[in-house]
């Protein structure tokens, strides 16, 4: 039995190796977010660019360059509003010191505005998405890639106002 497993593992492993994706950006998680129905909230998503590489920012300086973009697919009761990308760093690279590119390197954070429908139930909702990027090193570039993004958002009830009670004046003792 053990022998069969070893043989099958040996057969299968080159397949994974042959198609193993080269990953230049990793998703490091999202800042825990709590949303009250009707009140949009910011969710910060953190990414890390592999050392020695850079990716174009969301606003590269040429239309030929492929921008970094985030697409989210929230569950039915949630909605995504605007997505705010950080400004790129203007850097030049050894392959062309005369040209500055707008890039992300090291860590960068993308902010997504999210809201919950008024009728949304409370609890944890999982949001899926994809970050598309195109990476380069100091002397080579790599085809565009997408990485999956997944994070949880907690929907809570709006605190109810107490009815029938008059707010007390701070002057009344």
């Amino acid at each position, binding site marked *: *039995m053990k022998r*069969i497993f070893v043989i099958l593992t040996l057969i299968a492993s080159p*397949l994974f190796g042959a198609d193993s994706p080269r990953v230049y950006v990793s998703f490091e998680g999202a800042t825990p977010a709590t949303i009250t129905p009707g009140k949009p909230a910011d969710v910060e998503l953190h990414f890390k660019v592999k050392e020695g590489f850079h990716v174009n920012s969301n606003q590269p300086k040429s239309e030929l*360059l492929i921008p970094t973009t985030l697409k989210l697919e929230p569950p039915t009761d949630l909605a995504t509003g605007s997505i705010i990308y950080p400004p790129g760093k203007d850097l030049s690279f050894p*392959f062309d010191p005369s040209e500055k590119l707008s890039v992300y390197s090291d860590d960068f954070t993308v902010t997504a505005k999210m809201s919950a429908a008024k009728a949304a139930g409370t609890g944890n909702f999982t949001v899926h998405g994809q970050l598309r990027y195109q990476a380069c090193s100091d002397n080579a570039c*790599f085809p565009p890639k997408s990485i999956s993004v997944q994070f949880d958002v907690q929907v809570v009830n709006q605190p109810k106002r107490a009815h029938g009670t008059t707010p007390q004046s701070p002057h009344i003792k």
Partner: protein
Amino acid sequence: MKGNAVAIVVVTLVVAVMIFAGVKSSRGPKVSPMIGDAQPISSTDAKGKQAPDFALQDLQGKQVKLSDFRGKAVLLNFWATFCGPCKVEMPWLVELQKQYGPQGLEIVGVALDDSGKETIAKFAKEMGVNYTILQGQDAVGDAYGAVGLPATYYIDRRGKIIDSALGLVSRSEIENNIKKSLTESKSEAETANNRGKAAS
């Protein structure tokens, strides 16, 4: 008995994964641009191997095969419009095509780019490209192990890869490899000629 059941489950799972991997890796159009049965190579150990033949369309829509250039030294350059380092070496390739074209050099640029024929053509025109540009397909890049861009392969007159480079290298390194491919190809051709004469 229990062991056999576990083995069947494991075999079924592995076969399912293998089918999935096969489907996933079969990117690109259904008609493969690859010709013949040349084995895929990797950019790091391409030296000495036969260059896999392929057929791709040029910017005028004409089908061009790598083997059409047999008898010439070919510099096969994978590039893309989004690739900064590729842009740096293009003017060098233009000059080198002018300089070594009369000696039998043919530079062939394969654009691994999703931006479309018009964008590629406009870019090539702006860069003053005077060599053949082909619209690439992933299968061709995969066959050459071109994991990054630029990826350059120096092919002799008989279709054998004499050297390769992944990423931007210096102009002098490109030129040295061109000289090497032209000289080696020439001496091989002369040796073959001499052998032919001696035999007759």
